[in-house]
């Protein structure tokens, strides 16, 4: 009999180093398939996770590699949730400014596209701060259709 998937969850903790990005995106892709998403959706989840973890390493931790990034994957019947927690500098959802792609391609420049990809490829992107623990969180949600 198949294991019941309701509220199943597990965690992965990685050093804040970009060398582990491929490990994380591979995990996100496989987890998406386990959750019931198709190949195309799984690829999008993996890119969104790459962008989120990259932001933590480069911006929240300013490229410092001695910190940790915690990924918590939660499986429900309705969605796959990926929570990315860290102790670096955080942003709130109301600070998330997405570039307009039409304007962007008129005036090409480096940067600014990660948040846009995350928001386009996931159903929900939330940023939260836990004042008690001092940790910040990016929550990515992909609904299972």
């Amino acid at each position: 009999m198949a294991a019941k998937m309701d509220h199943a969850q597990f965690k992965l903790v990685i050093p804040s180093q970009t060398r582990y990005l491929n490990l994380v995106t591979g995990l996100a892709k496989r987890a998406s398939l386990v959750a019931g998403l198709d190949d195309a959706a799984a690829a999008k989840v993996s890119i969104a996770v790459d962008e989120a973890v990259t932001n933590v390493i480069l911006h929240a931790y300013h490229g410092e590699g001695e910190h940790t990034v915690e990924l918590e994957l939660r499986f429900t019947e309705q969605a796959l949730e990926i929570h990315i927690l860290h102790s670096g500098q955080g942003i709130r959802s109301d600070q998330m400014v997405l570039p307009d792609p039409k304007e962007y391609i008129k005036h090409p420049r480096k940067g600014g596209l990660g948040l846009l990809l995350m928001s386009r490829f996931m159903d929900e992107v939330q940023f939260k701060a836990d004042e008690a623990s001092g940790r910040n969180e990016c929550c990515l949600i992909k609904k299972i259709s």
Partner: protein
Amino acid sequence: MADLSIAVRQVEGVSVLLPAGFINAHTVREFEEALENLVQNGHYTILLNCKDLNYISSAGLGAIMGLIETVREHDGDILLSNLQDNVFAIFDTLGFTQLYRVFGNEDQALAAATPERKG
């Protein structure tokens, strides 16, 4: 297998770049250097054959965006071919398929880059 390897060859005035693996924040510097080397050596028409590129994140897109104006100022261009579905989805989602010419295969891209090649 390396995270990213990049082969470059010249075909009738077009620099064909074949990245294999993935381009993200960890590997993007290698990709940037390959592009910058071409531009610094006067190669302004660049075809990215992405048949072996498994994924590209915004870091890699930024590397391309950082050079597109430079190559076009020199009457060159950056063309794309053989995009895997998930890589195409990234370019298309961001509207970049309007900014770059995308082709199904390398021959089609080379024909467009060098019209005299096939008449």
